[in-house]
């Protein structure tokens, strides 16, 4: 066997392995939820049971999106949904359910939460909530190195739980295409160290930091608020889009890829999903097990920022 045969032999073997590679098929549930007035607690409870999420005696931390507040735009995860998720986890035996967020542009976290209706919707909200921007810190080395960052100071609260639940709003994003479960984790980076906005994440690469944060928090569950979503110039200046959906699953990249397809964004063109797929060789953007509504039946065209039309699903 000469060098040429050896080289082509290796190439053929690698190609064959690639073809036969079995990707993990993570479950994603998509359910219709026409409004916030339906029984969302029962709906979320069903999803958690369906996904066999270990809840009993667990400390659960919910991370909604409260990046800013506007009375005229659906920027935040709806407080009624957050309240329902709290109730669902409690009813399944969680030992503790807390809510935490570190808004990205303004420092008045509690006032924004009040304006957004969190105090009215969630009994005892003030006792359940932690402002991650001013929480005690832990110094953490990153598990992956897509961005130029090697370590981050992160709030201790996110490490003091057994299950982190990302509760994002389904929104378009004028830099990354879509902001969903993965991008929602930017909210855990503390403003008291990195500022408002957390500009270090932009300098180190937005998509790259999204991927790095994912590998730092591999044990998550995601529940996406797609009931009233946002399209256009998201994540702040976009407009209301009634999608009437809840999308959930234990593997955030798969949940986000599903949401992208629903929004008619090609997940293969979303850079942070590409990066995660590059590193996680057990996962492919296309591999998933869809439960509930088939994606094609709930697909709805989200308006994108004109500069991002290239991300459109053909």
């Amino acid at each position: 066997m000469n060098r040429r045969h050896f080289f082509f032999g290796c190439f053929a073997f690698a190609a064959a392995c690639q073809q036969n590679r079995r990707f993990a098929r993570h479950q994603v549930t998509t359910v219709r939820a026409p409004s916030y007035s339906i029984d969302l607690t029962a709906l979320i409870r069903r999803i958690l049971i369906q996904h066999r999420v270990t809840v009993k005696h667990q400390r659960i931390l919910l991370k909604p999106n409260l990046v800013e507040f506007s009375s005229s735009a659906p920027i935040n995860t709806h407080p009624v949904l957050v309240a329902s998720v709290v109730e669902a986890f409690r009813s399944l035996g969680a030992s503790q359910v807390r809510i935490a967020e570190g808004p990205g542009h303004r420092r008045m976290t509690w006032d924004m939460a009040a304006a957004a209706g969190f105090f009215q919707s969630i009994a005892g909200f003030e006792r359940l909530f932690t402002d991650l921007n001013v929480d005690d810190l832990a110094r953490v080395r990153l598990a992956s190195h897509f961005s130029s960052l090697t370590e981050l100071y992160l709030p201790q609260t996110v490490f003091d739980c057994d299950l982190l639940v990302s509760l994002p709003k389904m929104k378009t994003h004028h830099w990354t295409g879509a902001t969903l479960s993965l991008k929602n984790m930017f909210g855990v980076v503390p403003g008291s160290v990195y500022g408002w906005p957390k500009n270090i994440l932009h300098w180190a690469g937005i998509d790259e930091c999204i991927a790095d944060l994912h590998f730092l928090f591999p044990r998550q569950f995601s529940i996406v608020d797609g009931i009233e979503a946002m399209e256009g110039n998201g994540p702040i200046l976009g407009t209301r889009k009634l999608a009437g959906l809840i999308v959930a699953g234990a593997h955030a990249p798969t949940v986000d890829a599903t949401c992208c397809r629903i929004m008619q964004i090609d997940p293969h063109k979303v850079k942070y999903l590409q990066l995660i797929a590059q590193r996680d060789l057990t996962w492919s953007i296309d591999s998933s097990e869809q439960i509930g509504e088939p994606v094609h039946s709930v697909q709805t065209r989200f308006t994108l920022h004109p500069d991002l039309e290239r991300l459109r699903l053909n």
Partner: protein
Amino acid sequence: MFCLEGENRERCVDAVPDLDWRGQPARAVCQAPPQTQDAALETSLVAGAGKLLHALDTAQNSDGGWGYRSANSWTEPTALAALALNAYGCDGPAYRRGCAWLAARQHEDGGWSPNDMVSTSTWVTSLAFLALAERIRFRQRLAIQWMKNAVNQDPSRFERFIFGALRLTPPKVAGASPWFPGTAGWVIPTCLNLLSLSRAARMTNDSELTSIMADSRSFLLTHCCRDGGWNHGGSSYRSENAPSYPETTGLALLALGDVPYAKLAPAIQVAESFLDRAESSEGLAWLQMGLTKQGKPPRSESATFACHTLRDVALRLLGIAASSPRNQLVGAG
């Protein structure tokens, strides 16, 4: 959580009982109450200030610093607490221990980090400098040099070429200060750095400060929102219609104290309109200080807000004492 009159006290007491004044009557701790032209308003402000001062007093950590909500001390709330105590003439043990906590934490590079866990000097340096300036012995020259270095310089020719080719605005704009070293400049750290450099200019004969401050003023004046006020200061690219915030508008007016009225008239109008919808105690405090600095002190307090952290308490005190000659933030610019 702390509350002024009119807030739901039960809610606040439940939240952080160890930080609340526990319903004790207002205590006359200070010698220099706020100075307003409205006697009734002054009485209510003094009562509110008394409660807040008491809250600060009881929440000081054993190491002399203050935290946001927990027992761990941070530079920002400690600097603001020291500024607030000083504004009311409270220069007793609490103030001195707070200043000593700050002075002991100046890094070798002249700056301060957000707390003991973080090793990098950041934007909080401006506040620590303002709290200590001319009062406590610390390495002032090093601190001033750190603050000067924190201000972004003009982009290099190479950077201009690259960004020009990509049809983008260079993110590092001359005169702007970042939150964290090595990143872009934003409105709040630029305002705080401008306030502290203005203070430094009065203490030294450093001619370089004049041009740096001119660049910072220029950055602020060119980074206001369409409505005339300021928000966090993001690029207008893809965010052309972003609205301004009360807190950043008030702070920018405070930092731009030397700028002629004609250039700031629209911003002052926006700030006055924000007074009835300040959205937070922080917003109200910066508006009070900014408008006072611009010679338009608010005559009435139509809104009350809960203070959720010790930073809120300190800022609220500074807002109430906006007219006090001892308020170092209003006197800095």
